[in-house]
């Protein structure tokens, strides 16, 4: 058994770590706002800064980490993508190394050229529109209808998207057709398609995410814009989605590591009753427990990623990892408050957004319940531990 990362991955990890430390973390103060009332806080970096950072990542050869090489990405395996995501999550600055939804990987050659490549280059932003107003819990119960009319489809209904908007975009819309759930690629300028929301917020409400509202009124789409096969939208990205769950768990590990970093710094600098707080037994216990959680979550992520890269089925491992990492990061956020002797953050500090992220990861409680069931089903079916 060898727990050593291959040299190539170590190098990628170091590149990503240095990028986060040298380029992204210095921007945290600008993002969180310098004014006392946080009136200048923002959710995302300015476009020109983002373009500058993107160019740097391209030079490093890491743009499109999760995208296969034949589709124009860096072609990193799951473990490599996990290492990069873990590092990127150590900052509150929202930035990614060319992350594109794997739904688009299953497009035709024409769709890859018209949609995947611009999405990868950042020229167009894909708005994943799965959820609907009044139905945010069950993705299969889609009410937006796409009626067949000759060679075309006519879309009518409304959708919600949590994707980040941009100047140029296209929507990836899941609609109900006679054949079943079908995914459509809808261009920004398609008649009948309108988008509401997405304006940039400033101030202390900046990090709050509000969904974009997409409305389709007699929106005519050609059959060639159906992504994958009609009625088989749930087959999209099948090959890549379980690995994405492991990558998301790696993000939890990144947040957890940063929380430990902040807690350690606080324990060393705070004093109470004339004594540094790190000398107190309960603070030491809190730090040790946080470190144990981080370590365990990290090893689970790496193991699942390694199995994914071997081509094994990882539905159960991915469920285990997500379950553990999500719960671990919440427990850590809670334990950090013991180090701080109260709420672990002051408004406007990175800690505030880290803790928000830790809580947001667990917001899908029903989803976690189902992860438990994936694992339990395998155990009952005799898959062992």
């Amino acid at each position, binding site marked *: 058994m060898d727990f050593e990362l291959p040299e190539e991955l170590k190098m990628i990890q170091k590149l990503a770590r240095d990028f986060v430390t040298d380029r992204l973390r210095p921007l945290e103060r600008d993002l969180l706002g310098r004014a006392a009332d946080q009136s200048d806080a923002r959710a995302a970096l300015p476009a020109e800064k983002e373009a500058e950072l993107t160019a740097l990542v391209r030079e490093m050869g890491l743009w499109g980490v999760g995208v296969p090489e034949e589709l124009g990405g860096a072609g990193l395996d799951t473990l490599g993508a996990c290492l990069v995501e873990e590092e990127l999550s150590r900052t509150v600055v929202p930035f990614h190394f060319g992350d594109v939804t794997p739904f688009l990987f299953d497009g035709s050659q024409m769709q890859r050229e018209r949609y995947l490549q611009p999405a990868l280059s950042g020229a167009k932003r894909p708005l994943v529109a*799965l959820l609907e107003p009044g139905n945010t819990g069950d993705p299969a119960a889609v009410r937006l209808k796409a009626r067949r009319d000759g060679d075309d489809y006519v879309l009518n209904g409304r959708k919600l998207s949590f994707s980040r908007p941009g100047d140029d975009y296209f929507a990836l819309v899941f609609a109900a057709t006679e054949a079943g759930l079908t995914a459509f690629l809808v261009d920004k300028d398609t008649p009948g398609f309108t988008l509401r929301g997405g304006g940039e917020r400033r101030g202390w409400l900046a990090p709050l995410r509000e969904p974009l509202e997409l409305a389709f009124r007699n929106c005519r789409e050609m059959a060639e814009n159906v992504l994958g096969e009609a009625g088989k939208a749930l087959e999209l990205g099948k090959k890549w989605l379980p690995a*994405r*769950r492991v990558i998301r768990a790696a993000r939890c590990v990144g947040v957890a590591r940063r929380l430990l970093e902040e807690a350690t710094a606080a324990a060393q600098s705070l004093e109470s009753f004339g004594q540094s707080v790190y000398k107190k037994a309960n603070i030491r216990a809190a730090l040790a427990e946080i470190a144990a959680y981080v370590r365990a979550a990290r090893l689970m992520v790496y193991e699942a990623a390694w199995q994914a890269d071997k081509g094994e089925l990882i539905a159960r491992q991915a469920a285990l990892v997500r379950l553990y990492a999500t719960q671990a990061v919440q427990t850590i956020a809670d334990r950090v408050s013991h180090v701080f002797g109260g709420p672990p953050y002051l408004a406007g500090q990175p800690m505030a957004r880290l803790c928000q992220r830790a809580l947001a990861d667990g917001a899908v409680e029903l989803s976690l319940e189902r992860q438990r069931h994936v694992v339990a089903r395998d155990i009952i079916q005799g898959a062992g531990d």
Partner: protein
Amino acid sequence: MPLPVQRDVKEIEVILNQILGTRCPPVARLRLLSSGFGTAHSLNIAENLSGHKECLGCGNCVDICPFLSREPYRRQRTEQRTSMALESTVGEDCDLCHACVLVCPQVDTTIKHYIVNHRLVEVMSRLEERLGDVDEPDLDLFLEEAIS
């Protein structure tokens, strides 16, 4: 003992979920959201009580509360056995088991059905049904992709 025509949960789903998600015994607030005392149960000794939503003081909620069973000394704070007493003795220490709602005679059955079907761990078997077979697509993967 609510009215025959009870509260439609669809009308109150948002506030209902907010109440059920708040760490405090929810029974009193859900009683107020219910339809109130039914005529079939009123005694012919006073004015018609139909539709009234008061706590009857039966004490069911106080008796079933698992937190008060664990820490019975809290009951000594008051002799009352009402939902208000439950709120003041348990407060934010509530386990959110929702047992108090299920035993309250004044809460509508529609609300109780909603809790049983959507909020209790006992519905895990149904979640398993929804989860389906290994070969079926995992809808949560789609959900995660859409919101992350």
